[in-house]
């Protein structure tokens, strides 16, 4: 059910080769875009229609922000985040986001809120975003495929004990039989991590970790098998 965001293509062009005014820095809230990109037309894709205003509020009328919590790609969000969080720049969440710690977390110019993260939650979000934007792990593999937080975590902001259930992974990668087909060992059919003696309903997160190195759980016991997994420690 991979449903590309309807504006993903336009968004994919956004901010490519964007010239920056001066060194990368955090933009002050309010005049978010023009503080660093004085001439927005140079930042936007060529065919983009003229933009009035200079902040998130100018984008969201067309680039509707995802509220559905569906497992889908979100090119606009991914592009903006990839270019505005470390290592790209030392981004400031508040340039685009309206944040009242412990109360609400939304977008400037938008009434809704995705949650009420406390300062510790915000710190964690920043860390996980940095990992998502630039790591060897599964989170970055998703970033490269235009899947942002909501793609896996659904509605609302993830917290420190959030986990991702199998049906969420399988919405894009499933069904499990398809995965089992991909990892089928022709010589030894029983040696298949997606159809093993631990059962088909084993949690994906047993091996596949998003914000940390993924591990082949099988290898805990089957020490002589050589198996690889995307997003493993380098």
């Amino acid at each position, binding site marked *: 059910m991979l449903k590309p965001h309807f504006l993903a293509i336009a968004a994919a062009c956004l901010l490519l080769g964007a010239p920056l005014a001066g060194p990368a820095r955090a933009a002050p809230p309010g005049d978010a875009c023009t503080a660093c990109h004085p001439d927005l037309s140079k930042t936007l894709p060529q065919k983009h229609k003229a933009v009035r205003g200079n902040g998130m509020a100018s984008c969201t009328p067309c680039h509707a922000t995802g509220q559905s919590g569906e497992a889908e790609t979100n090119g606009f969000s991914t592009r903006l985040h990839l270019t505005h969080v470390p290592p790209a720049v030392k981004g400031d969440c508040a340039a685009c986001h309206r944040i009242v710690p412990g109360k609400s977390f939304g977008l400037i110019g938008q009434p809704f809120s995705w949650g009420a993260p406390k300062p510790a939650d915000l710190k964690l979000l920043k860390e996980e975003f940095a990992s998502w934007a630039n790591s060897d792990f599964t989170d970055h593999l998703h970033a490269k495929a235009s899947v942002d937080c909501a793609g896996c975590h659904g509605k609302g902001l993830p917290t420190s004990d959030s986990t991702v259930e199998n049906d969420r992974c399988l919405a894009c990668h499933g069904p499990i039989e398809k995965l089992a087909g991909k990892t089928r060992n022709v010589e030894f059919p029983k040696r298949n991590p997606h159809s093993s003696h*631990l*059962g088909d309903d084993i949690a994906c997160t047993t091996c596949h970790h998003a914000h940390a190195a993924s591990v082949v759980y099988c290898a805990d016991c089957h020490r002589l098998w050589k198996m690889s997994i995307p997003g493993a420690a380098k």
Partner: protein
Amino acid sequence: MSNKDLSRRSVLKSVALGAVALSGGTALNMAVPGTAQALVRKLPTQWDETWDVIVIGSGFAGLAAAAEAAGGGAKTTLLEKMPTYGGNSIINGGVFAAWDDKWHYREKLNLGADSPAQHWQDILKGGDYYSIPELAKEVADGAADALNWVVEDGGAELRPTVTRAGGHTAYRTHAAKSGVGREYTEALRKIAAKAGIKPTLNSEVTWIWRADADPKSAVLGVEIKRGKKVLNLRANKAVILASGGFSQNVEMRSAHNPRLTAEYNCTNHKGATGEIHKFAQAVGADTLQMNFIQLYPYAEPETGLLDAQAVYPFNGPGYGILYVTKQGKRFVNELERRDVVAYAQINLGKDAKPTWSIFNEAMILPMGGDPEEVAEGLKRGRFIKAESITELAGKCNIPTDALVDTVNKYIQYHKDGKDPEFNKPITPAMITLEKGPFYAIPQWPAVHFCMGGLRINASGQVIDVFGSPIPKLFAAGEVTGGIHGSNRLGSNAIPTCIVFGRIAGRNALKA
């Protein structure tokens, strides 16, 4: 615990209190009921979750306990620290000892008689009479019922045979159709699911809460780590410990049995680390026989894995399998108990690794083998196959003359009905090693099963160091000690875990 003991303990308590009053110092927390908390940990002031029954561990014992508790109407949670359910149970070899009153494979194959009393005696003798007889009796009496439960209510399937395994005097060991314990964990999971139970994974118990060691002081709940969160869970009726053994904890196992260093492989799942034993001890629980740790004599020599193929050497003796050293010599009575077979190998010296099991085609089905498993084992190089003993010796790098000589003598012993070398009792069901094709599989001991553990009574209650049951604390399965004495007979763990899991679950309802 008798009243006399109780009053003696009360005296000890008052002495301890008196000492506090006199010196102004502090006595050991656990000896000052009501006034102090277990060890240095402060009791939680609030609970994140409240349950009637908390079960720790999702193997045979935990699943059975949770199914009974929830089935009896208790609001029950089943906690599992690993990201998968089933512990050692799901990877186990699927052999299940039970005298039988329903499936009649023993009768159909004309394999003699059996009874719960005979099974009970085998447990006691096989453990050198270190077993607590009344605990062993529960297992023997309840084994058939436990087997019927997983087959009839859980849909487990059996292979149509029974074997006589080392130390057992009857053909009573049933084999799972799938060849692994998953046959029964899935059955139990289904039974538990009907009662509304689903194991909660990634939830590691990190403490057991009890205010003090007063015999009337009940266990209150547990602390758990779930993801990055630490939570306290209240248990109104009972906490049931079903956390399995500690074979994977090298420090702990070698503290009790210094020979079992990291040099030995281990057959267990990674989570068999024994911390629950220590938390239980910290709130007063008694342990026994912690040094009785079993080696599985037939593990894969390099990794210690107990795969489906590694069960064949265990299932084979009743049907005439032969064990030889890599010099092609016998070294033990094949029908011996696990400890005897394991130490017979170890005593040959480190360079003796591996030893071999040798069987022929005719033995495969009777000993619970499966052609597909054999084919897979051959492909993986686990089994070696040859048309003659000479060819087999060559393939296994065993001196040919020695092996041929050993096999010829072995055949003769079976014909004579007498084994003058190792005194193996020869039965009519044994097949002589005359006709090929022949098979060989390498084997070496690996740390496998903890006979020792928490002291329980026949109601599954955990007993404290003074002999009183700890209110609201139960245990079942491999975490408990004293059922199998110095040596567990293979295929007795499954009935033990299911029988005592059910006992604990049912009694938790009344706690």
